[in-house]
């Protein structure tokens, strides 16, 4: 699908763009990650509104987590979450062994630090 490649390129450019604008401006480095996180959060909110429009009401937290891991992840990344762990006290760890937005990056050292920035989106 051609649109997947387009989105990957846009995504990478966005990360680079935010960091470049930070170099020219006066902000400290930490703000870039927050900016990217907030962007991702906002996009996620819109997506969730659309997807949950027709699904049944969630009864409890477990329902919500199941929805995220199965339906939501499948719709956005075309696969399910590989591992879900919890400490039963409100913390959930989702593990994806083949994160779609990073698979195209080669495993050289040069790219690994940038991969962590892309991760936050």
């Amino acid at each position, binding site marked *: 699908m051609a649109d997947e490649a387009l989105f990957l390129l846009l995504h990478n450019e966005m990360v680079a763009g935010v960091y470049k604008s930070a170099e020219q401006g006066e902000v400290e480095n930490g703000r870039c990650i927050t900016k990217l996180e907030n962007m991702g959060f906002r996009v996620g909110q819109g997506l969730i509104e659309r997807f949950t*429009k027709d699904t049944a*009401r969630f009864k409890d937290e477990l329902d919500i987590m199941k929805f995220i891991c199965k339906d939501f992840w499948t719709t956005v990344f075309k696969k399910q979450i590989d591992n879900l762990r919890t400490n039963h006290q409100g913390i959930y760890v989702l593990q994806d062994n083949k994160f779609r937005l990073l698979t195209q990056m080669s495993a050289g050292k040069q790219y690994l630090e940038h991969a962590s920035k892309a991760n936050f989106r």
Partner: protein
Amino acid sequence: MAVCIAVIAKENYPLYIRSTPMENELKFHYMVHTSLDVVDEKISAMGKALVDQRELYLGLLYPTEDYKVYGYVTNSKVKFVMVVDSSNTALRDNEIRSMFRKLHNSYTDVMCNPFYNPGDRIQSRVFDNMVTSMMIQVC
């Protein structure tokens, strides 16, 4: 033909509230506020299961002598409350459901608007027009 429509955020403050201009608006604001308690009661998993637990449409919240109040909750815990005139007996449950459906669709469109910050009052013209089309036409 609703008399008052309100969109309430997850933290129970109104994102959008509009009533027919003829009436005393404060009365409707108060009614919507009190109906929030009923909504919370229906959402929480009370053992009675009066409402189908998996549905977004909550149904008739409470009837007063002049008005009936209907509720609907989305999965992101945003509530829609609609007050209709009791004298309008022609309104059936299915129509109310379809009105809430339209509300939900418009609300989703507002959420996806990148210029809209969640938590602000809804100021979209399209949303306004849709709500106007659902409100009663009083000359």
